[in-house]
């Protein structure tokens, strides 16, 4: 027999679980099942095609490009982006002058909507009146001015900059975790003669490992669902230089009206998400209690 407390927990959880099943699990199952069908807007009925959509997808050069772009962005976000946020958190942890101000200001880009951020960067990179080209011209480097978002050589790094620099969530989460670390551990390290850098590297970072792992999961999933910022700034171009999997999915759904193929891409994204989370959990030992 369930005790009263457990019964209440179940009762409270029930509506949420029911909604989850209805809103997420059922559509997810439909996406998975229809990925094995020729499912188009113009078709009068679905026809089973087995693995045909998957075979077409894995042989599609556009998929290869979108897949590699997505992987590169996940890697950049999980390493450099999270690393930058963590580094700032460790600096702020020292409570240097103005640390609260910096902590607040650094969060601002994260609370601006993606649509607005996209527009801001469109203006920064605009080839005619953009801030970046204006600065280059004013310091005598006008020959370097270019159409940053539409040049095949610069589009990828330019789009990456739209979100890469703003690690406010990572900084906030890692800093809050650092602030809850037992002070005595830091004091002990100091007494043992550890330098501030050594304390950060060998005491603080291991203690923050779980939180850093969590922010890496957040960063990776953010990249797996990244759509609006790319759509607004480059639309996935030039060519497929900045196309990722969500944009490829959107093209199959919206442009080709090929829902079966779009759902196949959706399944790949879900599987990638599961794989990426498993890898991060394993590498960062997020579920491991030992330090």
């Amino acid at each position, binding site marked *: 027999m369930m005790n009263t407390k457990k019964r209440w927990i179940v009762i409270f959880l029930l509506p949420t679980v029911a909604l989850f099943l209805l809103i997420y699990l059922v559509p997810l199952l439909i996406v998975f099942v229809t990925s094995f069908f020729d499912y188009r*807007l*113009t078709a009068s009925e679905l026809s089973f095609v087995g693995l045909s959509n998957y075979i077409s997808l894995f042989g599609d050069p556009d998929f290869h490009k979108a897949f590699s772009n997505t992987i590169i962005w996940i890697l950049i976000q999980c390493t450099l982006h999270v690393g930058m946020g963590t580094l700032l958190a460790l600096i702020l942890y020292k409570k240097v002058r103005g640390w609260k101000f910096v902590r607040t200001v650094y969060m601002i880009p994260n609370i601006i909507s993606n649509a607005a951020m996209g527009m801001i960067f469109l203006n920064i990179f*605009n080839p*005619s009146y953009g801030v970046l080209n204006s600065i280059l011209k004013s310091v005598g480097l006008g020959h370097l001015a270019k*159409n940053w978002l*539409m*040049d095949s050589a610069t589009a990828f790094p330019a789009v990456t900059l739209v979100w890469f620099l703003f690690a406010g969530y990572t900084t906030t989460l890692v800093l809050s975790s650092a602030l809850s670390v037992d002070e005595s551990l830091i004091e002990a390290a100091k007494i043992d003669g550890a330098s501030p850098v050594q304390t950060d590297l060998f005491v603080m970072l291991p203690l923050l490992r779980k939180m850093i792992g969590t922010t890496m999961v957040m960063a990776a999933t953010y990249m797996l669902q990244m759509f609006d910022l790319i759509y607004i700034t480059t639309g996935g*171009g030039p060519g497929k230089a900045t196309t990722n999997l969500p944009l490829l999915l959107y093209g199959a759904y919206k442009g080709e*009206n090929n829902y079966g193929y779009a759902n196949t891409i959706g399944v790949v994204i879900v599987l990638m998400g599961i794989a990426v989370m498993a890898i991060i959990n394993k590498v960062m030992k997020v579920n491991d209690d030992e330090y």
Partner: protein
Amino acid sequence: MKKLLVVLLITAMVVGMVSGCSKKADNKKSSTNKDGEIVLNYPTFQCGVNTAAEVVAKLVEEFNEKYDGKYEIKLEEIPGDTNYVDKIKVQLGTGDLPPVIYGGGFNLLDLALAKDLVVDLTEKVDADSEWKDLYSEAALTTNSRDGKIYASSVEGSLVGYFYNKELFDKAGIKEPAKTWDEFFAQCETLKKAGITPLSMDTADSAWVTQLWLGALVATDNESGLDFMKTMNPTDYNTPEMIAAVEKVQKMLKEYTTLDAIGGKYEQAANNFLSGQTAMIANGPWMIGDFTDETKTTKDFADKVGTAIYPDSFVYDAPIQGYFVTKQSDPKVEEAAIEMVKFFTSAHAQQLGLDLQGMVPASDTVKVSDEAKDKFPLLSEFIELAADAETRTDNMQATMYSNLLDTISQELPRLQSGDIDAKGFCEIMSKDAAKNS
């Protein structure tokens, strides 16, 4: 007390969730009301700030007055054409379509036909000589499939280009070019005079740029014109197309603004309206912008001239019109057919012209004195267009919809030289093949 509080909390949570999820659906189905009047629910994006909103509202008012007690149209406003297309596509998936759909430039007719959801209007049109007379040969092509008439147009798409007379004068150009050689010579002259010749774009399907491209293809030779008249072509790797793309590449490299690459229509329009560029390809719906002081200077309209394309070409095709979808109640279908007939009648086309300067679908509808006074530039253009020797629909109206994104993504690479004209055409063909 504690238990009571918990029970209340759970009840509130469940009620909140259920009421949030199951907001009572609005009664948006077409049906017969208690007075025996048939109510047609008509979703439309031609509302709010849409240029055709006033015309549609007036037609609904007149229809409801004419058929008072028999039929009534209830407008369901869907701001934004993209939202409208998305809604219709979702309804296509479920097979639960509104009785009347406006095909517009979105080719919704073929999508609905693929699902066998469209009512054949052939008999009704044939039986009504007044209605039939409104169908030109081009209108029949646009609205028919396999010899059967499925839709009826109200508006035509008559597109040439606008030029800035002041900038032309400054460069010593007397009149718009008659041939493409003359056109490119004029671009060079303007450039030498320090004037950017063309407003162009690449984003959002590159509307302005593809107008130049299509005009070049259509005037290259007979095959080019045939290509432009083909619905959903799959082979873009043709000599006419490659030659036209080469010229567009030159335009993008030498004769347009820096922000054209990656730029949207709005930027292209703004460059023309601010006097930075000398020419922009676009339809008469832009004429209103020339007097809009929030977009340009007070006297700008006086500086604008209009022209058909070199080699005597103009885009001229009725825009795919209204069609009726199959309904379980035949009375609703009858009402829908009456609505389509009314909305595309000569009166409706005249109303659109007089109120908003909408080009009539039928050439039997003449430009009234009222329209001439209100839209002098439009009247001038309609007269010029009447003399054009070659005419067809624009490229976007006939291409597979996924190619709209392909064009936007590949034009920047064409401009930078990452791909050449042949490479561009091969990519277009490859992406077109994805639809088969």
